[in-house]
């Protein structure tokens, strides 16, 4: 019986992927991609990875749609400067994609049974961090270095988005000024949904200690809610030169780095937590990280600085 569901999901996803590639208008293709992302969350759940399902729902369902649509909008007014890819180019791209997919499939199928995995080791050592969710233990303790560097990468992505601004707009407010009828449905939706979304975001972050969840998923939800207030015209995007904003952006990696250096000076190694303080330290890092992720992703979605502060 589960087989029918899985087969149906796989078929639907392939269909959506195909449609996304074939769709002619940007808006249609982006919607296909978002639908694909939302279905992928279902697939992750079926594969027994609820943390990844949460992240996929957050990023694929919310973030990528907004990002792609903003990019499409920026390109809409510009004249195409390059030739459209011809038939041969498309064929080559299709062949390359198929080859990569075939390679991954072969590698997966030829894995020894049982596949080599560190999962039992991670679960066995979960007691050292005091966290019930082994995924969070891996992210925040066993592979903390990777998580810290990922946050820096997010920051670099934001700088990349800002670098698209015209020179005179550097440090200004990102994106256009959104206006909406203050008594209309959009403002109403924002007023009611945003507080609920914030609570859900904080809940998802908090529950990541013992259940699927965590700082990244929670932060993404908070970022989406912040963007919703901006889209409804209830708040304006802050100018990117504001000091408090920039402090919030670096808070996550900074706290991580401080704790890491503390581990180096006072403990055994960089990012080593003393076992007695492991959980409070991890919590402190996660709080800072959630703030940074929320602000960074929110600003990335808000767009390129276009307006000066005075407006």
């Amino acid at each position, binding site marked *: 019986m589960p087989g029918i569901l899985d087969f149906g999901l796989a078929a639907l996803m392939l269909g959506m992927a195909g449609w996304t590639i074939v769709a002619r208008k940007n808006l249609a293709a982006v919607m296909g991609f978002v639908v694909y992302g939302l279905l992928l969350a279902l697939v992750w759940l079926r594969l027994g990875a609820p943390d990844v399902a949460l992240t996929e729902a957050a990023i694929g369902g919310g973030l990528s749609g907004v990002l792609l649509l903003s990019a499409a909008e920026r390109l809409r007014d510009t004249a195409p400067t390059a030739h459209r890819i011809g038939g041969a180019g498309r064929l080559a791209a299709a062949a390359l994609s198929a080859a990569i997919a075939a390679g991954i499939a072969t590698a997966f199928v030829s894995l020894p049974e049982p596949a080599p995995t560190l999962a039992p080791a991670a679960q066995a050592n979960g007691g050292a961090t005091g966290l019930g969710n082994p995924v969070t233990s891996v992210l925040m303790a066993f592979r903390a270095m990777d998580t810290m560097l990922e946050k820096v990468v997010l920051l670099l992505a934001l700088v990349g988005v800002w670098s698209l601004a015209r020179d005179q707009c550097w440090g200004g407010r990102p994106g256009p000024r959104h206006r909406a009828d203050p008594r209309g*449905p*959009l403002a109403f939706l924002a007023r*009611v*949904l945003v507080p609920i979304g914030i609570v859900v975001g904080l809940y998802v972050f908090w529950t990541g200690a013992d259940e699927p969840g965590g700082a990244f998923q929670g932060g993404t939800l908070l970022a989406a809610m912040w963007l919703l207030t901006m889209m409804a015209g209830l708040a304006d995007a802050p100018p990117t030169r504001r000091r408090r904003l920039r402090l919030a952006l670096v808070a996550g990696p900074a706290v991580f780095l401080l704790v890491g250096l503390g581990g180096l000076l006072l403990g055994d190694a960089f990012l080593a937590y003393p076992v007695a303080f492991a959980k409070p330290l991890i919590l402190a890092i996660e709080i800072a990280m959630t703030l940074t992720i929320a602000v960074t992703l929110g600003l990335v979605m808000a767009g390129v600085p276009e307006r000066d502060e005075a407006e």
Partner: protein
Amino acid sequence: MIAFLGDLLTVVAVSAGLVFFLAGTVGLLRFPDTLTRLHALTKADTLGLGLIVLGLLPRAASARAGLKMVCIWLLILLAGASVSQLIAREARREGPKA
């Protein structure tokens, strides 16, 4: 006895919910224009979800899980009401199509 009643509620409510999902999709396929299709989607699917949530309540892992499911349904009610208004305004702005 209680377990049997719970199972009965689950089967009946979920089946009813599925009927409404089917009705919503049939509406999407058969209705002639955007606004009627929007109506079919938001009303039928929302009611279908409500019935499914009702059916799954007896099987909820805890009271908190059951409460979460009801909150999800209320959120979808809110979303359906607001987003359908926005889409309808966009449809009116676009003008009548084939």
